[in-house]
């Protein structure tokens, strides 16, 4: 967790922090781009393919503040959180390709990945299910008297799930140490926000649970960073959970198969002017911290890393079919009882 450790002392935004944030955002952008526009179309990645294009600032700007003992439950649009926790691009690629070397060893696909060692819990497809689980992770922290917190990520659609409401309510009642990070990208698959909820902002749900909440520009990584820092001060201080609603936009379909023709062109046009990577780069240029040439170098370094990672992942074997029945239970039932053959 080199990047993580390097960012830990940061209380002010300086050049080092900005470069770290930029690196992870560019890595997330380019890695997802490679997966969606190349590997998926080449048939090397099968199944669903979800990206967080245009949303990189949220996972990166928040997870960079996570401490080694914290736990994270990233959503399918938060690859940046995995990268910051030290999950390598090659592991992510092998996961997408269903290889034995992927984080779920071919048992699950795409962004359904996590790693106990690096304190990342993988999402499941029933959106919002991670919210109560985050409560349990936090409960264990409180149980042991730790000052760790949980970073619980979800989208706007998840806030319509009963699990979201049960989870927030219980965490608030129990004063559990959780930072809730909502990436409100305005669409849940094809359903726009005004058909998802009868309120303008997700934060309006928070007072019903007695939860402090704030809205932040989800495309401004520094704004996300500062909001997360505020939230952490509250949560690590033993004051219970805190909700940050990050306003953003999904600059892709729901999944690679989805051309998102239901999104008005003007809306996409408007949000393309708020690209989080370009926004951070402008901030750095304005302060004379970096030049366009530096950004080209960063991107080239990232692309080289991805080339190597793709090569590694493609060389990984697919899981052996003989392992099909492994790991259902700690100890396999005697007599091969997972199937019928005598």
């Amino acid at each position, binding site marked *: 967790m080199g990047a993580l450790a390097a960012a830990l002392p940061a209380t002010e935004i300086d050049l080092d922090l900005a470069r770290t944030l930029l690196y992870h955002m560019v890595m997330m952008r380019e890695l997802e781009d490679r997966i969606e526009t190349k590997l998926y179309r080449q048939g090397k990645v099968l199944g669903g393919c979800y990206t967080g294009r245009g949303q990189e600032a949220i996972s990166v700007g928040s997870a960079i503040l996570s401490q080694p003992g914290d*736990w994270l439950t990233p959503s399918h649009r938060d690859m940046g959180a995995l990268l910051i926790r030290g999950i390598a691009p090659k592991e992510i690629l092998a996961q997408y390709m269903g290889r034995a070397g992927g*984080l*779920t*060893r071919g*048992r*699950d696909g795409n962004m*359904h*990945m*996590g*790693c*106990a060692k690096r304190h990342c*819990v*993988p999402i*499941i*497809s*029933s959106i919002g*299910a991670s*919210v*109560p*689980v*985050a*409560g*349990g*992770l*936090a*409960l*264990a*922290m*409180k*149980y*042991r008297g730790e000052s760790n917190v949980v970073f619980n990520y979800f989208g706007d659609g998840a806030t319509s799930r*009963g*699990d979201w409401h*049960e*989870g927030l*309510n*219980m965490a608030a*009642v*129990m004063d559990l140490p959780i930072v809730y990070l909502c990436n409100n990208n305005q669409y849940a698959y094809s359903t726009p926000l005004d058909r998802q909820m009868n309120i303008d902002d997700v934060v309006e749900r928070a007072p019903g649970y007695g939860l402090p909440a704030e809205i932040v520009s989800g495309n401004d990584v520094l704004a996300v960073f500062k909001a997360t820092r505020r939230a952490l001060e509250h949560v690590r201080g033993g004051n219970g959970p805190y909700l940050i609603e990050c306003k953003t936009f999904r600059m892709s379909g729901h999944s690679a198969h989805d051309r998102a023709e239901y999104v008005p062109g003007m809306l996409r046009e408007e949000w393309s002017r708020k690209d989080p990577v370009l926004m951070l780069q402008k901030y750095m240029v304005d302060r004379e911290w970096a030049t366009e040439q530096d950004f080209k170098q960063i991107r080239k370094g990232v692309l080289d890393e991805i080339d190597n990672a793709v090569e590694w992942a493609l060389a990984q074997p697919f899981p052996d079919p003989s392992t099909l029945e492994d*790991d*259902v*239970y*700690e100890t396999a*039932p*005697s*007599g091969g*009882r*997972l199937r*019928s053959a*005598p």
Partner: protein
Amino acid sequence: MTETTYVQAIRAGIWEEMERDPNVFVMGEDIAEYGGAFKVTAGMLERFGEKRVVDTPLSESAIVGAGTGAAINGLRPVLEMQFADFMACGFDQITNFAAKCRYRWGQQIPMVIRAPAGGNIHGGPFHSQNVEMPYVHTPGLKVVQPATAYDAKGLLKASIRDNDPVIFLEHKYLYRSVKERLPAGDYTVPLGKAKVRREGNDLSIVAYGWMVHTALDAAAQLAAEGIDMEVLDLRTLAPLDREAVLATVRKTNKVIFLHEDTLTGGLGGELAGIVGEHAFEYLDGPMVRIAAPDTPVPFSETLEKAFLPTVDEVIEQARNLHRY
């Protein structure tokens, strides 16, 4: 030496495990100060404190989800569902989240979900159901239902020490209707092992939970008629002890599958499949299923009596099968 009831045995099992392992804790609705709807956790708050005896809002999905999260983060939760019927509210968390963690990302979930199940208590449609089958059908879960006080304690202690999620179904009618002398000190009963409750030679009956007692009562009466029925108590429904089922069939050559759960999609069909595939040549008569009819569990006493399998019904079916 005093006798211990089924419900006291469960309380003792949890209590001993909490004394043994500081990572074991209980969580559920109304379980702390109130001691739980069936008083299983009575007294635990005073002994173990509110950190380890956790009252929750009325949120089954959040209870199971929080249990899963706590298990991921190193604890060993013992969750109480107030009634097994309400597990439906946490179904996604149980079957999609907890059950699949080990297979997906190698994360063990050492969690017990205790749930009072079963009828004969005038509970009606939402307090009497037998909900085992959706969980038996979910790979990654273990499903247990004890029939005796000894097993209730031993199986529960084994479940708490198990590193996979266990659905622990307690029969409400048995809570205070069965009791026995229990050995002093620590013991466990292994998961996945059935037990022959009564040896017999003429035919076999396979049951679990309260129905083990129905089968034993029937067997006692049948013995007076010269019919010698073997009674097998499954104890664990998933993973099933197939060998024990096949062994009793190979021994007596005739078999009845008895459960309080409704007929269609009940465990009896699965057991018949196993016997049909692996012991068909041993059968000297048709396999017989005795189960509740495919209706919701009714409230009124006359209807509930008509719904539940009875000793008389078992005796009649056993006579028919014996004559076959």
